[in-house]
């Protein structure tokens, strides 16, 4: 995979630094839950089936908007708070970045903070499908820009 856009790489390093203080599994989740409670979520009017990514267990909503500068703006939400924290991290890393950078992002931060299992397609939380949707949207936009 190509090198990350500096913006996306810097944000991932930021998340990794935030999580570095927790060595206990439960502390990490406590932090994730706090993130889930605090992050700005999707506009209620857009929390519709059109924006629903159905995981087997927790549901995830994702909305994408393209900005004039060619960046993509994401907002997302979930009905499960831990998934919401993870979704929030994804948005923090990928939103408001150039479309091409999003489509080609190497998302290594979940591995680094020990939460990679949540991105596995065997996890039925909808997160893997959400990341796929984010990439697809960005790739389609990047293709139009090219």
């Amino acid at each position, binding site marked *: 995979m190509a090198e990350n856009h500096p913006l996306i790489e810097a944000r991932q390093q930021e998340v990794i630094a935030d999580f570095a203080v927790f060595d206990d599994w439960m502390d990490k989740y406590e932090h994730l839950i706090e993130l889930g409670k605090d992050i700005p979520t999707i506009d209620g009017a857009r929390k519709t089936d059109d924006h629903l990514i159905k995981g087997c267990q927790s549901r995830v909503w994702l909305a994408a908007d393209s900005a004039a500068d060619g960046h993509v703006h994401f907002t997302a939400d979930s009905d*499960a708070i831990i998934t919401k924290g993870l979704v929030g991290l994804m948005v923090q890393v990928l939103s408001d970045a150039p479309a091409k950078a999003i489509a080609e992002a190497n998302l290594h931060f979940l591995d680094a903070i020990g939460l990679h299992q949540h991105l596995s397609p065997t996890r039925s939380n909808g997160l893997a499908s959400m990341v796929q949707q984010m990439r697809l949207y960005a790739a389609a936009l990047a293709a139009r820009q090219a």
Partner: protein
Amino acid sequence: MANSSLPDRIRRDFPILEREVHGKPLVYLDNAASAQKPLAVIEGQREYLSNYHANIHRGAHQLAQLATEAFEGGRRKLAEHIGAPHVEEVIFTAGSTDAINLVAQSWGRANLGEGDVVLVTRMEHHANIVPWQMVCEAVGAKVEPVNVHEDGTLDLVDFHAALDRYSPKMVAFVHASNTLGTVNPVAELCRAASDAGALTLVDGSQALPHMSIDVKAIGCDFYVATAHKAYGPTGIGFLWGRKAILEAMPPWRGGGEMIQSVSFEGTTYNTLPHKFEAGTPHISGGIAFGLAIDWVRGVGIEAIAAHERSLVSYAHNALETLKGVRIIGTAPEKVGVVSLVVDGIHPYDLGTLMDGQGVAVRTGHHCTEPLMTHLGLESGTLRMSFAAYTTPREIDVAAAALARALAMLR
């Protein structure tokens, strides 16, 4: 009062129970999804693979004979365990799902037609809904559900009304619900369905590990179950059916083993049970299924049932004291399954945080989406399910883990 005398005796048979998860001792409460395996099953499979593996029912050599005897021995043990009048009425399948598909595709395609009804209940696992929907769609028949009460018991008034209303050709229902634990009055249901002229299929996936089963006393026409929930291996289960019905049914899958003679002018089929067992079967699975049955009989199914009954009431008491916890499924007769929800908190969050504390539970709709919708539980439930080796102490640990998860989420 729940005690540890049974688990104390048998826990050493299960090596996996010694392990840790996330640095905490494993508390395995996902037995309704799959039970752990005793050494007899693990070693028995190893013994077969190391000492006498060969293909069965053919081969003039010693190993083929030993393997055939062991595999057919598994079938005999199973037949005896469920009170089957004839050993050839027990068909090995890949599991309960496969067994129901066999009946739906073989019996269903031959006997269901335009406008016919297959009656099921709203508490069925998807495996006892979708195979019927598939055959019904193909032949123009319909699947209709019987209602379930709030407490998780079957609505018997609706059941009898549905028999009158639809005159179904087939009535299929669970012996024990995987989501609610409810034990259905299967003998009563079978009698009523038979009187109404229907055949009956009982899904015993959650009954086989927890209670004694006698297909004659139940009075059903078909009974299915899987090995892996009953301490046996995955990939093997069985269909029991009445001999006359099975004999009249056409084969479903074609291939080796299921034939008597093959020619391009016309093929003739083998007798029961081989007619329904095309291809090389799961030989080690059949052998180990028999060993799992031996293990259960050695411990005593009544002792297991009594132990699990006491665990259920112990768990209900321990969990109900936690603020906001609502037990889903409070039928008077239950197998070792306790489902719960906490208003405003997603079961997935609870399950994830309990996993972090070493406690394995299942969350979600448990492959019973129509039931969850019926009960208004869109996010499903958190389910703890027990086995012979589960201790009251483990339930205490699970309750404490749940309490900690709730404190973190509130």
